[in-house]
């Protein structure tokens, strides 16, 4: 089975978020970048598990500049067979999805996996866009995935419960918690990753349809108002009269 896993890079969860250039650019100074956790822990690891039982190949792919390569090497160290970097500096999801879909269509993948969202833009956009551009089925937020023949069996969380469904390959599936467990790369994997192929391909020239014009930080939270544990009725009073939430 020929599996494509889309990888995004994201600032580590504990990063301090600040902006530069008049609040128009994310300040990358001192920020540690990681593989977006949903792409890594769930999509990539489940892709590797499927390859281990069914045979085939796992290719990872990103749309980005040379700064993406350490992230791709890390994903290779976890066990992907080869990496592709589409050389572009995309500014919105449409541009990313169009580049990825273009590559996926040209290279006949059976299954495209990616995380349900990135932790920096929280958009949940690229998977659905890719599926529409490739004209294949899309299942989002999957917490379980198995493949037999050309049928993918999936469980996904949705409004009010869990849906059990099937889709025919090729398809695009976005991964949520539950699909797999995080794998920590070992020394052998890290060494092997250095010699695995990382192919840089030219972008097809897809364009962005939206642009981020500025960022703002939330207003600083005022100090917490502490309430005497012997007088919890005061909390109810404050929630009703001051915060007006009950």
């Amino acid at each position: 089975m020929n599996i494509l896993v889309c990888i995004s890079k994201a600032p580590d969860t504990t990063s301090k978020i600040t902006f530069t250039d008049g609040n128009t650019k994310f300040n990358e100074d001192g920020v540690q970048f990681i593989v977006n956790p949903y792409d890594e822990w769930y999509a990539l690891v489940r892709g590797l598990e499927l390859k281990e039982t069914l045979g085939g190949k796992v290719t990872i792919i990103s749309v980005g500049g040379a700064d993406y390569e350490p992230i791709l090497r890390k994903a290779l160290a976890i066990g992907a067979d080869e990496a592709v970097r589409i050389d572009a500096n995309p500014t919105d999801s449409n541009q990313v999805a169009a580049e990825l879909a273009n590559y996926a269509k040209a290279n006949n993948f059976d299954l495209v996996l990616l995380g349900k969202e990135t932790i920096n833009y929280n958009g949940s956009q690229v998977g659905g866009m890719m599926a529409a551009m490739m004209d294949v089925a899309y299942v989002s937020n999957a917490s379980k995935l198995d493949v037999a023949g050309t049928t993918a069996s999936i469980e996904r969380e949705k409004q009010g419960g869990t849906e059990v469904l099937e889709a025919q390959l090729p398809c695009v599936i976005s991964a949520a918690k539950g699909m797999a467990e995080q794998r920590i790369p070992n020394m052998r994997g890290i060494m092997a990753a250095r010699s695995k192929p990382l192919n840089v391909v030219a972008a097809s020239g897809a364009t962005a349809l939206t642009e981020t014009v500025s960022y703002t930080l939330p207003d600083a939270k005022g100090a917490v108002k502490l309430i005497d544990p012997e007088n919890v009725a005061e909390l109810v009073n404050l929630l009703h009269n001051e915060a007006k939430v009950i």
Partner: protein
Amino acid sequence: MNVLVFADSFNGSAVKAAHEAASYGAKIANGGNTSIVTYGEISESSLNELASYGITNILHANVINDMDPARLAKLVEAAANETGAEVVIFSHDYTGKSVAPMLAARMKAGLVTGVIDYPSTDGSFTVKKAVFSGKAFAEVKFNTEKKVISLLPNSVGKTKVEASANVTVFNPDLGASSVTIKEFKAKGGEGILLTEAELVVSAGRGLKGPENWGMIEELAKELGAGTACSRPVSDIGWRPHHEHVGQTGIAIRPNLYIAVGISGAIQHLAGVNGSKVIVVINTDSDAPFFKAADYGIVGDAFSVVPKLIEAVKEFKAAQA
């Protein structure tokens, strides 16, 4: 301008978030037509309630009921063409997250998801969304004539107006479903859907064991709140996974979030920092959650929560 709102349905009614999306759509239309497209089994009273937010037309695809995002995207595209919509609104919930990106790709429209406020239409069409797991906001400008927006639930509220809508059965040819639904396992128990709850009571490891959740459920019931939990608690199986809020669980933005015995790790905060008011109850006065809280009680949950339940009961009795 003409606006189209997608309303998801569940158990015979439009979901709660769809009401807010309808009200949001009518405000944006600003005198233009606001239409709704919905699907599946949905009662007449639910359709009438949707209409009351200032809706002109409701297009109802009553022959499809499975949530295949590819077909729903085709349905919404057909409805957008039918109504001449320039802007299409979704709720940023499970269904919206699946369908909106497919629709945007089909329509070659710009898409901004997780929007938290009304657009600014002064010169350009710009919307505000939360980014970096709630640690910042971005202003995003559309460069396309057609625009798709998904609205983060509980962001702008809703306003009813005197209105009634024309309801039209709308079943364009959508082709075969690209997925086969085998089974739907409804979440057990009564209670309020966490993603729709305006008030949420949540608890963590400080509760010491699953047998102690009775008081959390009772407090939630008295308040009319949903229940949630921290990641460690769902990982060790004290509570079901669907209650897990935080970075890898679900993100919520209720009006009130009460956290009991949760230290407030940054990954947990990422799922709840959009809450309007946060109350933290913890024995440890150094728990990081207090820094993100509006109100706090440094005390033992086993003594504070029962007192809080009594205080809420007294408050309700006084209000009645």
